[in-house]
């Protein structure tokens, strides 16, 4: 008698308790793993360390995912996440974040002197022919918002991230597909120039439209392995 009550009751409780959360079948939900570092919708703000990924060219994002997986970039948390995912899923991740068109926050104010920032501006927009340093804008677009399909924008990123990446390139901790142009360029930067260009880039607002340029307006100065189309 008791049992005939108890079993339906327990079942009812069990079912009520066991009702699982309804999860949306979207890439946004599947890629929630990216958001504890790169921010909600991949739009990490410029006040932290982790770079924003929303709106970056898909080819650039795919290359970076492959670089982490294949040992050309070293950052333990990223390697742990993407190893050993196949290109098929990495490409979907890249295309998802590339397709997000979201507003940018204002840059963090620069702590460097006006002279340092001016040196940074010159390096970014004109380069330094004496040191055989091309301007950033020669490859990353006149507005520095990147160039499709695979050259990233340089604005809207944390200063520490920019400094960290240039430093990693100098020391071989960050590499790109050969020919690795950025490694060659970074190795020509002395410490002062590296800080100056990072600080100036991090202090610039992202212009509107903020999307990457469709193509370079000039013949690229360098032929880089990372510039190519989506593999």
């Amino acid at each position, binding site marked *: 008698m008791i049992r005939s009550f108890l079993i339906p009751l327990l079942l009812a409780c069990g079912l009520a308790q066991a009702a699982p*959360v309804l999860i949306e079948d979207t890439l946004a939900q*599947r890629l929630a*793993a990216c958001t504890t*570092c790169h921010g909600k919708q991949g739009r990490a703000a410029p006040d932290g360390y982790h770079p924003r990924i929303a709106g970056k060219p898909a080819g650039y994002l795919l290359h970076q995912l492959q670089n982490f997986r*294949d040992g050309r970039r070293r950052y333990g*948390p990223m390697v742990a*996440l993407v190893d050993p995912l196949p290109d098929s*899923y990495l490409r979907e991740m890249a295309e998802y974040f590339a397709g997000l068109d979201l507003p940018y926050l204002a840059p963090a104010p620069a702590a460097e002197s006006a002279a340092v920032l001016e040196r940074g501006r010159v390096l970014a927009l004109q380069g330094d022919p004496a040191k055989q340093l091309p301007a950033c804008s020669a490859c990353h677009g006149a507005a520095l918002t990147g160039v499709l399909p695979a050259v990233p924008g340089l604005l809207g990123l944390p200063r520490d991230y920019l400094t960290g990446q240039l430093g990693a390139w100098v020391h071989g901790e960050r590499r790109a597909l050969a020919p690795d142009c950025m490694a060659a360029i970074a190795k020509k930067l002395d410490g002062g120039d590296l800080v100056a260009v990072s600080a100036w880039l991090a202090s610039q607002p992202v212009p509107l439209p903020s999307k990457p340029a469709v193509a370079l307006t000039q013949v690229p100065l360098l032929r880089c392995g990372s510039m190519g189309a989506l593999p």
Partner: protein
Amino acid sequence: MSWRKVLLVLLALVALALGAPTLLDRSDAVADNMRPGTGTPEQIERGRLLALAGNCATCHTTRGGAPYAGGRAIGTPFGTVYAGNLTPDEATGLGRWTAEHFWRALHQGRGYDGRRLVPAFPYTEFTRITRADSDALYAYLRTLPAVAQPNRGHELEWPYGTQTALAAWRLAFFRAGPWQDDPGRSAEWNRGAYLVNGAGHCVACHGGRNALGGTADAGFGGGLIPSRNWYAPAFTRAGEASVADWPLEQIVALLRDGVAPRGRAIGPMAEVVMRSTQHLPAADLQAMAVYLKSLPVEAVRASPAQPPLPAVMEQGRQLYRDHCAACHGDAGEGGVLPGGAPAVPALAGNRTVTMDPPANLVRAIALGGFGAVTAANPRPFGMPPFAHVLRDEQIAAVASFLRASWGAQAAPVSAFDVARFRGGED
């Protein structure tokens, strides 16, 4: 000198006294009138599948490197071992090897020149591979593009890499001999046992290892994977990875899809599913499932653990509510897609949550991960990493809360455990 070294040196002295290196652990001679050969298309295809079953490419390929060209560093408690080049390059790979040399390597753990190989190359298991399968594997490897990449010498502490130490080790922990079918079992069971214990070398992780790294008589009692800090759970414990009470098709699903109703592959097992088991023929997966399901289950240990302190429990409850419940549910029910397909694992009743050591729970919270990408699950839901969001002591509180909630009664996790288990090689 560490106790491990003392143990091995003593073992080596005994072995020397017994004449082990010259008398007891002799190498078969390889006929020198043989030439490297080519296989039939059937052999090559059979060898390709065996290479997948053995997951050879994972150890024998560096990150982003040419497949099977070797060079990957394998961390062990005895030093670093570098996998060899298996491509048919004449100077640096297996170009000069004949099928005889290859058989002797798998079956006896000997290199081209007859020297004893370090047992990070799992010849303790590959010795069970039949001669026909060895020849098939050889035939397949001969078809790979030759890659000139010199092998790198192992960086082992003395005396682990010496021939005398290896002779002693082999005397204690290695018996050469191909797999013998158990006539009392079905052909399917025997096929499964052959794959699991031979090419699959599952025991290399799931058996744990003795103090000198031996897998002999290890059974499938589980073990912490050296240098990676993931725990390979025991096949023989109901609270770990036993599948004795799973339907066969669910065991197959775990190996093929990486997800099954009562478990999923994470960490190194997700790599195994992606690189190895998902590619195996359905009949072989079925055979492995039959064998795994037949493994005996040890009696469960008796007393439930002490619950965490109330303050820790409360801290864990709050952190769970803030960071985990949106996907895993207020009561650890997990999440499903609108059609009912499982998306986010339930934590109530989840064996990864309660097993000891709690390495995999700590690593899942700290590092996150996507699990295996397979044909049935091409876009797995990713678990976010929390190592940079929560302090060790907070991760410990969440883990302790999970291990004492919804019927679970596993011991609390300390911040020290978190610090210990979240590190390790990528």
